[in-house]
C-alpha cells in the first residue's frame, strides 16, 4: 500500500476517532442540540484542517523527496550518470540522500576502475599482437594461423610472397580456397590423435609419430588449389590455456629457389653424361680408324680427319658453355650478400689491433662488394697475420680498388711483394673459426676469386683479392638538378680565405700534411642571407691516404625551415634534424675533429662561409689553412667546362657513392684531392705555399671573369 494512502487513512481514522470522542464528550456534557451541532461542525473543520496540514507536510517533506531519491537511484542503477545525487533541502530523510550519494560515488569509482583495467589489458594484448605480427613479418617462412573452422586468423608477408599474392589470402577467408584440404585435414587428424594420446601413454605417442613430426608439429606436403605449386609445410596445433585446441598453425618455406638450383645442377650433369656420348663415339671411331688402319686412301683419311676436327670443335664449344653455366650456378648458392667495405675493414682492423698489435688502416672510398662477410673477415685477418709474419711489417692499409666488374680488396704495405709459392702455401691452411674447417682456397673458390701479390710503386707491395662489385642504386639525381653545383661568383667569397700562413708552413710538402676534407649541406645557397647548415661530413687524409675509418658525420638543426627544393637534393627533412644540436655546437665538435689540419673542400668559399659564421656564434675561431679542390682542378684542367663534383669524379675514375650526403661528398672530394696532389706534383707543385698561391690566383681569375659577365 502506498505510503501516502496509508497516512491519509490513518489521519482520517485518527480524525474520526478524535471527532467521535469529542462528540461523545460533548454529548455527555451538553444538552442543547444546536450548539452541539455547531460545536461538532467546528471541531470537524478543525480536525480536517489539521489532517490536511499534516498530510501536506508529509507529502512535501517525506513523500516527494523519497520519490525523487527513488528515481535517481534507479536511474543510476540502470545507466551511468555522473551527476551527484541531491535532494532539495528541507526534507525529513535525515542522512538518506547522503548515503545514496556515497553509494553513487562508490559505484562510479568501481566503474572507472573496471574501465581502466579493461583498457590496460586491451593495450597489453594489442602490444603482444603487434610484437607477434612484427616477428611474423620478419620470418622468411610463410605462416598462416587458422581457427578450427579453417578460417584464416593471421598470416604474414612471406606467406603472401610464397603463395604468389593470391586474392584468396585474407583474414576470415577459408584456407581451403588457397590450399587443397585433404593433406591438411589428414594431418590435423593425426595431430589430434597425438594430442589425445599425450595424456595417456607418451611412449605410444612417440612411436606412432616416427620421423614425420617432432612431438609438436608434423610435416606434410600440400598443394595450392590452382595446382601450380607443391609446398613443404609444417602443421602444429594451437592450444588455449585450458588445454583445448582452438586452431592450428601452418608454416611453409620457399624452397623454390633451392629446388631450382638443384634441378639446374642435375640438368648440367645429365647433359654431360648423355649428350656427350654421341660426339665422343664418333670421335673415338674416327681416331681409331686413323690410328690403326694404314691402308686408308688419302680421301678416306681426309674425311676421317674432318670428322675428328668437327666433333672436337663441337665438344669444345659445349664445354665452354657448360663451364659458364656452372660458374653462374656455383656463385648463386652460397650465402653471399652485399657488404659495405669500410664496415668490414673496421672490424678486421679492431680484431688485429686487439689480438696481434697490428695496425690496419682502412683507406679509400668505401664501396659495396658481394661476399660472405664472416668468411671474408676471417680470410683477411688470416692473410694479414701471415704477411706480418713473413715480412715483419706491423702496419698495413686495407682498401678496395674499384675495377670494371670487380672490387679488388687490397692489403698494402711497405716492402716487397710476396712470392707466389708462399701465397700458395697459405691457401691450404684452414681458417681458424671458419665453419667446417674451410681453407683460404675454399673461400676463394666460393667467391670465384683469386689471390696474388703485386709490387706497387714507391717501394710498396700489395696482396689482391678480387670480389664481385655490387651495383648499388646510386642516390637518384633529383629532377632538374643543376649539373653545376658550383654557385656563380657571389659576394660571400672571402678574400681572407687564402690568407697567408707562416713561412715555415708554406714550405711544408703537401704529401706530408694532414688534411681534413669536408663538405656541408645547407638550407640554401646563401650563407649570409639566412641560410643555415643542416649537416657536415668530413674525412681525414694523412700522407696521401684517405682514412675511411676516421670520419665526422653530423646533422645540424638549422633553427629554420628546410625548403622542399633543398630536401630533394640532400634528403634531409625537418624531422631528421628536430632533436639535433644547432650549428655552433656541431661546429665546435667539428673543430675538435679537425685539430690543426688543413681544411679542404670542393668550392671551399661556400662551406667556409657557413663554418666561420657558426664558429663565431660558438665563440671559436677556425684559423686552419684552407685549400679549395675545385680551384685546384680548374687550374689543372682549364680546358674542361663541367666542374661539378660528379663530373670531376668521373674524369678521375672515382666511384661516386652517396652523392649529396655530406659524408659521401666529402669522401669523393678526398679521393679527387689525393689524385689532384699527384697531378700537382707532375707540374712541380709540391709545397703548401705553392698550392696556396695557385688558389689565390685562380680565385682572382674567377672573380675577374664574373665581373666581365
Amino acid at each position, binding site marked *: 500500500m502506498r505510503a501516502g494512502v496509508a497516512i491519509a487513512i490513518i489521519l482520517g481514522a485518527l480524525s474520526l476517532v478524535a471527532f467521535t470522542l469529542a462528540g461523545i464528550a460533548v454529548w455527555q456534557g451538553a444538552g442543547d442540540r444546536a450548539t452541539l451541532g455547531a460545536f461538532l461542525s467546528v471541531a470537524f473543520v478543525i480536525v480536517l484542517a489539521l489532517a490536511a496540514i499534516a498530510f501536506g507536510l508529509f507529502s512535501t517533506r517525506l513523500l516527494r523527496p523519497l520519490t525523487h531519491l527513488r528515481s535517481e537511484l534507479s536511474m543510476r542503477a540502470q545507466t551511468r550518470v555522473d551527476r551527484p545525487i541531491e535532494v532539495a533541502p528541507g526534507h525529513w530523510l535525515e542522512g538518506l540522500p547522503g548515503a545514496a550519494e556515497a553509494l553513487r560515488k562508490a559505484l562510479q569509482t568501481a566503474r572507472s576502475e573496471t574501465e581502466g583495467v579493461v583498457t590496460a589489458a586491451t593495450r597489453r594484448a594489442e602490444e603482444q599482437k603487434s610484437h607477434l605480427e612484427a616477428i611474423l613479418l620478419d620470418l622468411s617462412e610463410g605462416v598462416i594461423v587458422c581457427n578450427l573452422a579453417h578460417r584464416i586468423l593471421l598470416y604474414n608477408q612471406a606467406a603472401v610472397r610464397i603463395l604468389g599474392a593470391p586474392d584468396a589470402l585474407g583474414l576470415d577467408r577459408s584456407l581451403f580456397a588457397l590450399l587443397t584440404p585433404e593433406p591438411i585435414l589428414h594431418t590435423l587428424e593425426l595431430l589430434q590423435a597425438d594430442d589425445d594420446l599425450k595424456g595417456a601413454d607418451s611412449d605410444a605417442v612417440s612411436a606412432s609419430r616416427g620421423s614425420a613430426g617432432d612431438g609438436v608439429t608434423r610435416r606434410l606436403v600440400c598443394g595450392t588449389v590452382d595446382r601450380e605449386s607443391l609446398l613443404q609445410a609444417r602443421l602444429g596445433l594451437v592450444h588455449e590455456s585450458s588445454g583445448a585446441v582452438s586452431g592450428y598453425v601452418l608454416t611453409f618455406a620457399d624452397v623454390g629457389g633451392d629446388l631450382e638450383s638443384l634441378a639446374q645442377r642435375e640438368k648440367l650433369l645429365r647433359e654431360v653424361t648423355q649428350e656427350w656420348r654421341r660426339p665422343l663415339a664418333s670421335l673415338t671411331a674416327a681416331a681409331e680408324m686413323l690410328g690403326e688402319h694404314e691402308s686408308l686412301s688419302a680421301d678416306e683419311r681426309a674425311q676421317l680427319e674432318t670428322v675428328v676436327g668437327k666433333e672436337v670443335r663441337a665438344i669444345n664449344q659445349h664445354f665452354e658453355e657448360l663451364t659458364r653455366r656452372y660458374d653462374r650456378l656455383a656463385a648463386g648458392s652460397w650465402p653471399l650478400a652485399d657488404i659495405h667495405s669500410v664496415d668490414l675493414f673496421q672490424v678486421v682492423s679492431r680484431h688485429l689491433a686487439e689480438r696481434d698489435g697490428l695496425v690496419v688502416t682502412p683507406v679509400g672510398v668505401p664501396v659495396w662488394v658481394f661476399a660472405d662477410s664472416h668468411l671474408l673477415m676471417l680470410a683477411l685477418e688470416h692473410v694479414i697475420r701471415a704477411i706480418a709474419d713473413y715480412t715483419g711489417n706491423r702496419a698495413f692499409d686495407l682498401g678496395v680498388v674499384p675495377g670494371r666488374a670487380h672490387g679488388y680488396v687490397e692489403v698494402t704495405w711497405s716492402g716487397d711483394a710476396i712470392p707466389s709459392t708462399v701465397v700458395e702455401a697459405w691457401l691450404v691452411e684452414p681458417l681458424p673459426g671458419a665453419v667446417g674447417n674451410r681453407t683460404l682456397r675454399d673461400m676463394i673458390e666460393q667467391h670465384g676469386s683469386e689471390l*696474388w701479390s703485386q709490387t706497387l710503386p714507391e717501394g710498396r707491395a700489395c696482396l689482391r683479392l678480387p670480389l664481385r662489385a655490387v651495383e648499388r642504386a646510386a642516390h637518384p639525381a633529383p629532377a632538374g638538378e643543376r649539373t653545376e653545383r658550383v654557385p656563380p661568383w657571389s659576394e660571400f667569397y672571402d678574400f681572407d680565405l687564402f690568407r697567408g700562413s707562416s713561412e715555415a708552413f708554406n714550405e711544408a710538402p703537401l704529401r706530408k700534411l694532414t688534411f681534413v676534407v669536408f663538405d656541408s649541406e645547407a638550407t640554401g645557397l646563401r650563407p649570409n642571407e639566412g641560410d643555415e647548415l643542416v649537416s657536415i661530413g668530413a674525412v681525414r687524409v694523412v700522407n696521401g691516404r684517405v682514412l675511411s675509418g676516421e670520419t665526422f658525420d653530423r646533422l645540424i638543426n638549422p633553427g629554420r625551415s628546410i625548403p622542399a627544393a633543398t630536401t630533394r637534393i640532400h634528403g634531409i627533412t625537418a624531422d631528421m634534424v628536430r632533436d639535433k644540436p644547432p650549428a655552433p655546437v656541431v661546429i665546435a665538435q667539428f673543430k675538435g675533429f679537425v685539430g690543426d689540419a688543413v681544411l679542404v673542400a670542393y668550392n671551399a668559399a661556400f662551406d667556409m662561409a657557413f663554418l666561420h659564421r657558426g664558429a663565431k656564434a660558438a665563440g671559436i675561431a677556425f684559423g686552419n689553412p684552407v685549400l679549395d679542390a675545385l680551384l685546384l682542378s680548374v687550374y689543372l684542367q682549364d680546358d674542361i667546362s663541367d666542374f661539378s663534383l660528379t663530373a670531376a669524379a668521373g674524369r678521375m675514375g672515382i666511384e661516386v657513392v652517396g652523392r649529396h650526403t655530406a659524408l659521401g661528398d666529402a669522401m669523393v672530394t678526398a679521393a679527387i684531392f689525393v689524385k689532384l696532389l699527384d697531378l700537382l706534383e707532375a707540374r712541380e707543385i709540391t709545397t703548401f705555399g705553392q698550392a696556396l698561391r695557385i688558389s689565390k690566383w685562380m680565385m682572382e681569375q674567377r672573380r675577374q671573369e664574373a665581373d666581365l659577365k
Partner: protein
Amino acid sequence: MPRSVLVVDDEPNILLCLEFLMKKEGHDVRIARDGEEALAEIRKSPPDLVLLDVMMPKRNGFDVCEAIRANPEWKDMRVVMLTAKGRDIEREKGFAAGADDYITKPFSTRDVVERVNGWLGVARA
C-alpha cells in the same frame, strides 16, 4: 735470324704439339717438363719467348714467371702463359706475376701460333 722459343708443360701431348708447331714456324724450339727444368734451360741460354704452362709440379707457372721477371737481364724475354683456368681473374693474376699474354686451354693451335709470332715481332710465314 730464327727466334728461340722454350715450351714448358707437364702434359706430354701438349708438349709434342707445341714443339711441332713452333718448329714448323721456323723457330728454334726447346722443351721443359716442369718449372725447374725450365729455369735451368733459361739460365743455359735465354730464349726470346717462353710458352709457360701454369699447373705444373715442383714450381708452377706463376712462380717461374716471377723468377724470370726478378732477373733484370731477362726483361725482354716474352712470357706467354698457358692455363687450364679460364676466368678473367686468372688472367689478371698472370699479368700481375709479369706475364705478357695469357692463353686458355683448350686452345686453338692457330691462335697460339699467331700470338707467339705477334710477340716475337715476326710476320706470319
